[in-house]
């Protein structure tokens, strides 16, 4: 083995040792941070107050990006991406606060850091989607839910069709395609978000 090879070997040993120590240190840090997030709020099951009003403020804020109630914890991440955390609201299902990431004036991510997400048990965290879907910014092809039956359905179908016809369409469907790079989707035939609209008009 030449002196050069020996030095190279030493270098690699030092390099990988240092890298391992670094990774372990990062891992410990992350584990510590995770503990803080996994706070489990006690639910109040006999108060069936819908969470929609409370969470609505957070999510609307997130989707519109105007953030009137944002607590002002602005931090720059990855250059132009800014993160905001909304106020915390109490709901029967736990505390809710929304966090958004904004890039170039557009919301690029919505998360709810307040709700615990440690498996196997966690609280269902609601995302208000109607605005997102109607704005054509959701990559969701269908919503699975309990069946709508005749009466509620008829009214909603009529309204969905009316809404679609208003836009000069023959049919409606729920998700305007915003798949990135989907050459097949034609904006003029992009269907109205009938399912979320149906949901929102039903209540």
């Amino acid at each position, binding site marked *: 083995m030449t002196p050069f090879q020996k030095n190279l070997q030493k270098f690699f040993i030092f390099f990988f040792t240092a890298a391992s120590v670094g990774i372990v240190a990062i891992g410990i840090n992350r584990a510590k941070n995770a503990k803080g997030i996994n706070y489990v709020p006690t639910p109040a099951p006999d108060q069936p107050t819908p969470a929609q009003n409370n969470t609505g403020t957070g999510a609307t804020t997130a989707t519109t990006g105007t953030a009137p109630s944002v607590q002002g914890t602005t931090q720059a991440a990855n250059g132009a991406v800014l993160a905001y955390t909304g106020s915390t609201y109490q709901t029967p299902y736990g505390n809710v606060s929304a966090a958004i990431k904004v890039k170039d004036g557009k919301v690029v991510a919505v998360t709810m850091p307040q709700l615990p997400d440690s*498996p196997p048990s966690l609280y269902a965290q609601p995302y208000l989607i109607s605005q997102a879907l109607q704005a054509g910014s959701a990559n969701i092809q269908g919503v699975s839910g*309990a069946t709508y039956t005749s009466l509620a359905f008829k009214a909603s179908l009529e309204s969905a069709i009316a809404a679609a016809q208003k836009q000069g369409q023959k049919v409606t*469907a729920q998700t305007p395609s915003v798949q990135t790079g989907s050459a097949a989707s034609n904006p003029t035939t992009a269907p109205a978000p009938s399912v979320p609209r149906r949901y929102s008009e039903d209540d």
Partner: protein
Amino acid sequence: MTTGTLHRVFHSMGIAVHCTLVGINAKEAEERIAEAEKIFNEFDLRFSRFKETSELHQLNVSAGKAHKVSIEMFQVIKKCVALAEQTSGAFDPSVGGVLASYGYGLPKDFTPPSPLPTYRDISFNDSTLEITLASGQVLEPASVVKSMAIDIAAQAFRGVPGFMINAGGDIMTHGKFEDGALWNIAIQDPRDPRAIVGALGIENAGIATSGVYQTHGESKGQKWHHLVDMRTQESTSGILSATVVAPTCEQADTEATLTILLGITDGIARLERTGLPYFLILNDGLVKKNAAFAALEVPVGNLISKSA
């Protein structure tokens, strides 16, 4: 571009049926959709408890006499009885009598006999395709029928590279969505119909959510919903919403419905035996799901972040 993503909605069985087809030209799609709609309408005409002309209604008013039925009806009622046996009667097609007495569906102004007949009172004659119900017994196989219709309508789309049929929240997917992507299916929040609680990516699978939050009402001061535990003849509680993913929509729907009816302990035990991915929301908002479901999950944040 002759092929692309096509969306069509038709109305059958009292629900909106939303079909999405990928990689098929518009003309062929219209023919396939028409075929699928026909299948749904045939199911509706045969199995509706809301139509006086339906075969099911004829059976329900056969008043204790042997009644000749179609092979389709015979098979569906047999299937319902098998499920009733498996669940010790928690699921029972005789629920039709309870629902009718609430004014939900036919027969009109129905007063159920006491004691209420159960699945054990249904007798079959396999050689003549005759079903004999107890006097005053009203069957409602709807929870099986709709997802069966979805699976059979899916055959109308055979050969289509990718498609999804969404009938009132019960969904069958085949192949891939655009650009080889999985079908992203969100799960409705049972507490707020405008919200979702999660999403998952699936292909070649059915997904169904059963819940106590859509069909409900009040009768004689008592709140009821359409899922009635026939062991107690009361609307069940404990689980707000059950979502199951399975190879067929029928299996997904059946398991989701049975989970609600069986309640938390028995329902989860049954799901664990099937090994199917499941996601439950309990009355207190707590979520129960298995690892198989977690493997399919897609963070909602990723789905609503792709701004146009």
